[in-house]
């Protein structure tokens, strides 16, 4: 029992870290524009699949990952530039529907490029597990948790310390006032999509050595990341991170202690419970402390 618990905790925090990064991406775009970007999961898939392909054509590992992230960021910014910006007078709901359309489009494009096969990346630094009693911790898990923690800290200080970060918060608080202060609101939006795509791509390459990736892998990860963002209080970036980790742990505890068949159901039951009973999320909506 104790071992199952510890193992589930390790697995849960690992998977939850990926949810956290996806959730953080949701929160950033929601903050910037009140839009839930349902193509967020596709960023994860594109990051992972591009890395797989670039590695297969013979690029060194680090270079392949670097380019994969660049591609993901470019696609995120193109989504903003060619799908979101032209519809700037559309309502929030229409814009959300546009993101759903974009996610279907990206999935279709991925199917054409990469086919239906499953792919994975090699672990970043070997497969030799670390034993903690009878539970094991793989080096990749450490990579996932460590890089996620680093990303979260960087994003946090980006919004707290840099003028661009503050300007993005200003755009979300009041776009007209931001514009009056000389802040280029559209460019900030473009930047937000790029940043969200980057975080999605990072989640993708981190998790690809652990979970297989395929053209439609983004759908489930996107929904889990969305659940994380809701759990944490939509528009609360650090809440989304906490929500992701909590979700990952509950999911894997449920799978370990009850049955792995319920794994995905658990996430959605939690999502529904939160929406019913605590729609502002466990950690409160954006407001008192946004970042």
């Amino acid at each position, binding site marked *: 029992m104790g071992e199952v618990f510890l193992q589930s905790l390790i697995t849960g925090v690992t998977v939850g870290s990926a949810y956290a990064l996806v959730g953080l991406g949701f929160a950033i775009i929601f903050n910037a524009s009140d839009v839930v970007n349902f193509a967020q999961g596709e960023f994860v898939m594109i990051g992972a699949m591009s890395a797989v392909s670039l590695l297969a054509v013979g690029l060194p590992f680090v270079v392949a990952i670097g380019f994969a992230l660049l591609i993901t960021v470019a696609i995120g910014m193109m989504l903003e530039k060619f799908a979101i910006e032209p519809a700037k007078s559309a309502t929030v709901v229409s814009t959300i529907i546009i993101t759903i359309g974009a996610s279907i489009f990206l999935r279709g494009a991925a199917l054409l490029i990469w086919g239906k096969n499953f792919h994975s990346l090699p672990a970043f630094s070997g497969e030799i597990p670390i034993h903690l009693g009878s539970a094991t911790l793989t080096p990749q898990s450490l990579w996932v948790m460590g890089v996620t923690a680093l990303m979260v800290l960087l994003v946090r200080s980006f919004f707290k310390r840099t003028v661009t970060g503050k300007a993005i918060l200003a755009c979300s608080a009041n776009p007209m006032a931001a514009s*009056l202060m000389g802040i280029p609101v559209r460019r900030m939006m473009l930047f937000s999509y790029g940043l969200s795509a980057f975080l999605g791509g990072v989640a993708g390459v981190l998790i690809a050595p652990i979970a297989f990736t395929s053209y439609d892998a983004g759908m489930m990860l996107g929904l889990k990341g969305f659940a994380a963002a809701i759990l944490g209080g939509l528009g609360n970036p650090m809440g989304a991170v906490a929500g992701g980790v909590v979700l990952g742990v509950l999911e894997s505890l449920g799978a370990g202690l009850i049955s792995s068949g319920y794994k995905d159901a658990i996430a959605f039951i939690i999502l529904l419970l939160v929406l019913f009973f605590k729609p502002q999320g466990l950690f409160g909506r954006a407001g008192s402390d946004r970042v």
Partner: protein
Amino acid sequence: MGDAVQPLLALSSLSCHYGKTPALRGVDIEVNEGELVTIVGANGAGKTTLLRAISGVLPIHGGSITFEGESITKMAAHHRCEVGICHVPEGRLMFADLTVADNIYLGGYAHRRDKSWIKKGTEWVYELFPILQDKAQDRAGTLSGGQQQMVAIGRALMGRPRLLLLDEPSMGLAPLLVADIFRVIRQLNQEEGLTCLMVEQNAKAALKIAQRGYVLETGGVTLSASASDLLANEEIRKAYLGH
């Protein structure tokens, strides 16, 4: 002012509409360097629309805007701030979740790389409104209306204005605070030589510190005169000064 002096801001047959409803119909207004000009008009006359058109956050449908002799009619809003048109918006529009210090800092966004200006501007703002220094780390949304108005003015000053646009700076403030705010605006204009275009429903107070004024009615200028003439005008007294 003689013809030789080029106005700092010139609006020529400016028109603007929301959907099909016209809000401005061919407005001509000039503001000269160093002046404080006020626009008086009832609620819904188009005063806010006018200022938004000047700062570029609202598209215009006809006419032209000239600033320092150059047309800025097609210039994007965020560039107008760079050339020195700074706007204190109606309703203050705080970045409510950000601190007072960050609100003021972001006012200088256009000059963010000019560290010496940011430092000097911030000191200037805190000198004008010492209370804001004490509140620097508070979220702007927690401040009183009067203090938020100070932040809004301070934020605009950080943009290094050549022309300061003020949209109803006295709106919703207690009389004592109104006097405070008007004193600062007068000081900015008379002691620091800052050119101001101010829109006010509190016409009396505005005309007392302004040199000239325009009367705006349903999107058009109906009268333009010196502030003292407007204050003495019988019809204006009846319509806007409450006696």
